[in-house]
């Protein structure tokens, strides 16, 4: 009975990661580490779905490795540096380099004409999402959590429509962790601390999974481009005096609209 429950994809990618994320958000929030909810959720999904084997080092396993390393880098950035434009630019460049490291071995097997568009989308998309989120969202825990929620859901559903269900579950897990981080803020009415600890955890996994679904499965490149605009949507203005829960709902809705467009495009792609 329990084994069947834990084998259910909805539990593996949604319920179990959400519970793990919620526990971490509650316990570590007071130490400015509530953003680790995302990596807790992601790691829970990985544990149930694929495990932590890293041989051979496939593109998916590289993403898992980076997904586990991103929050560590985020903690280092948050505690060692002040947020600056230069810092965001460097993190964006690191995101681009990560995408190149993951996808180059696959793209190198294709001819240039077929490799250029998905390769450029993956590299530029990673740079944009990581850089923008760090620059504009990291200082606002509500907007960044709303962005993570919408980006995770959008990536997950679009990846499923792109014939990559495992990536779909990983995307949903990112959304579950972000949702847990957001929910704690909505219930308590107090903002948490996001910083690079949270934004890197979300953006690295989400955009690289979306790119993997494009390069290794059937997600169209323009869906990835639209997904990369989710953080922009979550950054749209909300009433300044509104209650925190209302700000959270509005920012999430903005993100969901853009994520929804990416999913519709993914559904209709492929003829």
């Amino acid at each position, binding site marked *: 009975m329990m084994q069947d429950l834990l084998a259910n994809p909805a539990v593996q990618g949604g319920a179990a990661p959400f519970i793990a994320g919620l526990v971490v958000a509650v316990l570590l929030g007071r130490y400015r580490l509530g953003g680790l909810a995302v990596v807790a959720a992601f790691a829970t999904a990985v544990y149930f779905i694929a*495990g932590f084997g890293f041989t051979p080092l*496939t593109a998916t396993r590289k993403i898992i490795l980076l997904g586990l390393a991103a929050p560590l880098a985020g903690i280092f950035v948050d505690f060692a540096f002040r947020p600056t434009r230069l810092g965001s630019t460097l993190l964006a460049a690191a995101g681009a380099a990560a995408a190149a490291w993951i996808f180059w071995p696959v793209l190198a097997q294709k001819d240039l004409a077929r490799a250029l568009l998905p390769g450029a989308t993956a590299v530029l998309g990673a740079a944009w999402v990581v850089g923008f989120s760090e620059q504009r969202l990291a200082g606002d825990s509500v907007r960044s959590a709303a962005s993570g929620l919408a980006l995770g859901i959008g990536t997950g559903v679009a990846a499923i429509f792109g014939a990559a269900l*495992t990536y779909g579950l990983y995307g949903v897990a990112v959304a579950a962790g972000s949702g847990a981080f957001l929910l704690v803020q909505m219930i308590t009415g107090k903002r948490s601390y996001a910083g690079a600890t949270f934004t890197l955890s979300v953006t690295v996994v989400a955009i690289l999974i979306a790119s993997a679904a494009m390069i290794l499965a059937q997600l169209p490149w323009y869906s990835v481009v639209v997904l990369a605009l989710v953080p922009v949507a979550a950054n749209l203005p909300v009433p300044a005096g509104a209650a925190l829960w209302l700000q959270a709902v509005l920012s999430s809705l903005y993100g969901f609209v853009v994520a929804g467009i990416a999913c519709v495009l993914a559904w209709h792609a492929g003829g």
Partner: protein
Amino acid sequence: MPSKLTAGLIAAALPLAATAAPESFTVDPYHSIPYFEVVHLNTSIIRGRFEKISGKMTLDTAAKTGSIEITVPTATLSTGDGDKGDRPRSRDEHLRSPDFFNVAEFPTMTYKGKASKFSGDHPAAIEGELTLLGVTKPVNLTVERWNCGPDPRTQGKRYFCGGNATGSFKRSDFGMKFIVGPVSDEVKLWMSLEAFRN
């Protein structure tokens, strides 16, 4: 006298040596098809196949040895469901994704084996290794039927061998872990093989 006897023995043995040499074959891609089957949701058996395989084979019936190397382009898989219809993607597209065969990252899988048992002149069992998703594991095949002879399509000018072989493996051993359970872990193989003597 002894030297004449030796020369005579060598001369007599030469034709035997010639026939006992290992013969090399090239796999006929049009009549060599690996099929696979899995149990779906503990109910029906879903079958699929790969097309356009390539490979080579050696056979020495006198020495009871043989070997085979096959390369399978994974993108050629088909389960008869290639049209997505009103769904976002077809089953074949899903099978090509990283959930299963990950064909973009691993465009080929290979099988290399040696005949480990003969039944008369025919290979009866093959011990070999399957490389799938970058992982190499032992997979043994049982040769169910085998025959060699002149190819009637060429009025006997071409010589060929062929038969069927079966085997099985656990896909999770190769890292293919997506929904193990609802889709069975055990994958059964059934292969038709024909090869022309070079």
